[in-house]
């Protein structure tokens, strides 16, 4: 385990931002901190970087406690949501600044920078200012800067949230190729569950300063420990049926199928997505979202069914999963 957070507490004023946070990230592993805004995920990242100090708890990198080490000597490569490129310096000087400060020689500097510009296809932008670059190019400069840091840990704070959907999909493999799966642990903060599922080895779903559940994307999808996790992971959202006897039953829209012998429902609305379509129906157990094949013909009255084994059962009061 090369990155380890132990019982981290952090308050801002009278608000607990992180409560007793534990997290370990192994060499080459990518852990996504996933959650709604205000859940503490960005704060956790800033604590690891050393830009804020925890009130309690320890952070260690390669077994060494780094809490007392200032940010400038912590050797983390961070990509900011805003990219945080220096606006008065062109791309080359943006990349050069850190190397210069850390005392690398001119010849070595030039070589590393021309290498990284080539890898990220930024050769033609080297003399341009950040304001002259497109969003995707700025993002790649920010990646290049983090790579040049020779970091012990990579920290990515919503690195793609300022890009449009198509560019995001194009950049994901790029990100995987350059940072994820190397020898360093990677912590990836995002509020986009799809991005977390696509990139992370494990997802830590956070809420109110705590980790609600941590596990592989498959674990979170197939065995959500709480209703919150069940609702956050998977699109469209999991259906929650009307509670019975203190038990709430959840069923994923994609686990429901059309079945003549099933529960009858009335169609409320229908979204067609091409390969699939999403139906919203009213049933005796409440409204249901259903995903089915795009070419299926749908009438006003349909019958649906699902396997009992696909049901997720939660305690109504605590919201915790009931063992099955």
């Amino acid at each position, binding site marked *: 385990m090369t990155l380890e957070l132990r019982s981290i507490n952090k308050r801002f004023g009278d608000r607990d931002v992180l409560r007793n946070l534990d997290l370990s990230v192994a060499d080459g592993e990518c852990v996504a901190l996933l959650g709604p805004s205000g859940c503490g995920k960005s704060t956790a990242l*800033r604590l690891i*970087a*050393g*830009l804020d100090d925890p009130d309690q708890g320890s952070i260690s990198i390669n077994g060494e406690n780094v809490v007392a080490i*200032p*940010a*400038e*000597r*912590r050797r*983390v*490569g*961070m990509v*900011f949501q*805003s990219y*945080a*490129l*220096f*606006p*008065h310096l062109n791309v080359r000087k943006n990349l050069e*600044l*850190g190397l210069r*400060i*850390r005392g690398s020689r001119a010849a070595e500097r030039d070589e590393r920078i021309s290498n990284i510009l080539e890898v990220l296809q930024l050769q033609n932008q080297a003399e341009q*200012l950040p*304001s002259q670059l497109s969003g995707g190019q700025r993002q790649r400069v920010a990646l290049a*800067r983090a790579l040049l*840091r020779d970091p012990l840990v990579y920290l990515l704070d919503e690195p793609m949230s300022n890009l449009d959907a198509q560019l995001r999909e194009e950049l994901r493999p790029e990100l995987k190729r350059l940072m994820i799966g190397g020898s360093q642990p990677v912590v990836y903060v995002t509020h986009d569950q799809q991005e977390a599922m696509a990139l992370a080895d494990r997802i830590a779903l956070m809420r109110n300063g705590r980790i609600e559940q941590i596990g592989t994307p498959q674990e979170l999808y197939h065995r959500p420990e709480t209703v919150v996790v069940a609702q956050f992971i998977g699109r469209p959202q999991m259906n929650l049926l009307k509670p019975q006897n203190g038990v709430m039953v959840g069923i994923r829209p994609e686990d429901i199928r059309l079945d003549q012998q099933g529960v009858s429902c009335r169609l409320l609305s229908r979204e067609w997505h091409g390969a699939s379509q999403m139906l919203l129906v009213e049933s005796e157990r409440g409204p249901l979202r259903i995903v089915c094949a795009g070419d299926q013909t749908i009438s006003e009255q349909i019958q649906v069914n699902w396997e009992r084994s696909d049901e997720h059962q939660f305690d109504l009061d605590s919201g915790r999963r009931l063992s099955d």
Partner: protein
Amino acid sequence: MALIFGWPLLRYAWLSGHADSVLTGLVPVANGGANWLRLLSDQRFWVDALQTARFGVVSVGIELILAMAIALLLDQRWRGRGAVRALTLMPWALPTTMMALGWRWIFNTPYGPIEQLAGSLGAGPLNLLSAPSLTWLVTVLADVWKTTPFIALILLAGLQTIPDDLYGAFRLEGGTSVQALRRITLPLLTPYILLSLLFRLAQAFGVFDLIQVLTGGGPAGSTESLALYAYLNAMRFLDFGYSATVMLGGFVLLMALIGLGALILRLSGLIRPLQT
């Protein structure tokens, strides 16, 4: 613009080509540039020009440094910052005449607190308002006290346009906060520094009220500014033609000084951040 700035300027230019004083019965009579020839050989004009430049450059220089320190301090997060911010602006909000009277009292010999203090330490009397080599420093002090907050306000506004993430990114690159000041803060603040320099230099070159009240240009003309000299020509010597010439001459010198400054900045590459 043309009406409130251009017209008076043209009127001055026209007036500077005429004799218009008690000798002409206060009727403008064209005198073919005699005013300008007189200006070139008028020692008092050139001495005043130097004194004005000295006052402007020294006080604006000190103000800039102090204002930078204050702005950096006020940009940090600490308890009571809001109240201090408001308090800092107080001297600037005070009418110049009132605060100049205040300073005149503070430096009064023998009753002012400075002389009292010096006397009790056995160092007095200092006669700071009647020592030709020192009194100009008192005018600088009063000006610094009054207008530093103004520059601090402009610089603070500039500081707040710099996103926190930039400092974070800079630290993660291995830079210390002292290095950040030079590599991030100053370059990004340059437009604001130049703006306040321009404002303040133009203002300092026209200084009148502060000096009129505090020293009246004395002792022995050692604090007299160009504006004061122009005023004396018009209101005491009733020589309106020459007063206009002095005014315009000062204006030309100020433009030349600003042009020179801009040239130096452009050549040194400092002005580049303005263009992005």
